[in-house]
């Protein structure tokens, strides 16, 4: 079975669930109709979604580069962590809110779409992983620069987290290309 066939099969499975009824009901909400009938509404929320992932992704990238010892060495790791952490989680809040608005704008296209659910799984993994990563960095940040060698697991994790967020973004783009 090709990847396309498999995704199509998953879409067929989603069509047998109560998500169909639910997503159809959501598409009748006044807010959903408002989003659908105002031309600039969806691109505006998509832009907000893109700008917030820009903040989250680059803050994560800068923290990862600091952990890898590539960037920001004029500052302690604890300072870098505090600096970026606040932006990462604030951006995630905007990301989730704008994402929910986009979900409401096209409920059937998203909810009856395996790629959307893959993205949600990847997102949950990325968020959980980020929490663990930041906690691990925080615990070791005081002694980090004293013994810059070692921490191999955290260095690897700092790369993995970037790959994870790229996968989440890829999921977002491919929602539009699910075979139906």
């Amino acid at each position, binding site marked *: 079975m090709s990847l396309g066939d498999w995704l199509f099969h998953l879409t067929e499975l989603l069509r047998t669930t109560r998500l169909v009824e639910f997503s159809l009901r959501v598409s009748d909400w006044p807010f959903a109709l408002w989003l659908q009938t105002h031309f600039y509404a*969806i691109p505006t929320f998509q832009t907000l979604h893109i*700008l917030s992932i820009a903040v989250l*992704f680059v803050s994560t990238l800068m923290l990862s580069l600091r952990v890898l010892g590539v960037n920001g060495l*004029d500052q302690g790791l604890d300072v870098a962590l505090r600096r970026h952490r606040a932006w990462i989680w604030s951006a995630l809040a905007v990301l989730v809110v704008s994402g929910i608005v986009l979900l409401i704008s096209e409920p059937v296209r998203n909810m009856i779409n395996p790629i959307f659910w893959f993205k949600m799984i990847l997102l949950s993994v990325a968020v959980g992983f980020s929490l663990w990563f930041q906690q691990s960095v925080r615990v070791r940040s005081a002694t980090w620069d004293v013994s810059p060698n070692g921490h191999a697991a955290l260095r690897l994790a700092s790369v993995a987290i970037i790959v994870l967020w790229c996968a989440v*973004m890829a999921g977002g783009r491919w929602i539009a290309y699910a075979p139906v």
Partner: protein
Amino acid sequence: MNAESIWKGLENSALGTTIASSEWMFPTLETIHVIAIVTVIGAIAMMDMRLLGLTSGNRAVRALAHDTLPVTWVAFALAAVTGSLLFASKATTYMVNPYFLWKLAFMVLAGLNMVFFHRYVAKGMDSWGAPGTAIPLSAKLSGLLSLGLWMIIPFCGRVIGFTLGVYTPS
């Protein structure tokens, strides 16, 4: 040879038709394009907000520029390459799309702002952010303009996707 025939030639080239007829190439290029522009916008915004005095107040501007500039350039190169390939597959359609043309115009403006900033405004950058020194108004204005432009550019990019069927080449 007029401009229109150039876009037609590009679209009908082996490169253009290969991307247009492939099932996975266009979305894959789009994905890389999105990851790249998100990185460009985020890195530029960090620098702009530092110039405006909104963030990283405890860090020298030079140190922040050192962190963000390489990231910006690598990501921008990736965005430009993937963007050009996406363009090649539908060149005539993009060239009649006003949102695409606006996006290009705003990017040129952002580029000019950056050149102007680095050539004239950033002369005293080494002292910016040191205790007791202020960031000049011209640098703040440049940062504000850049921040605004890089918010409008992805908006134009998104609207292009919704208007490809509205503006079609004759």
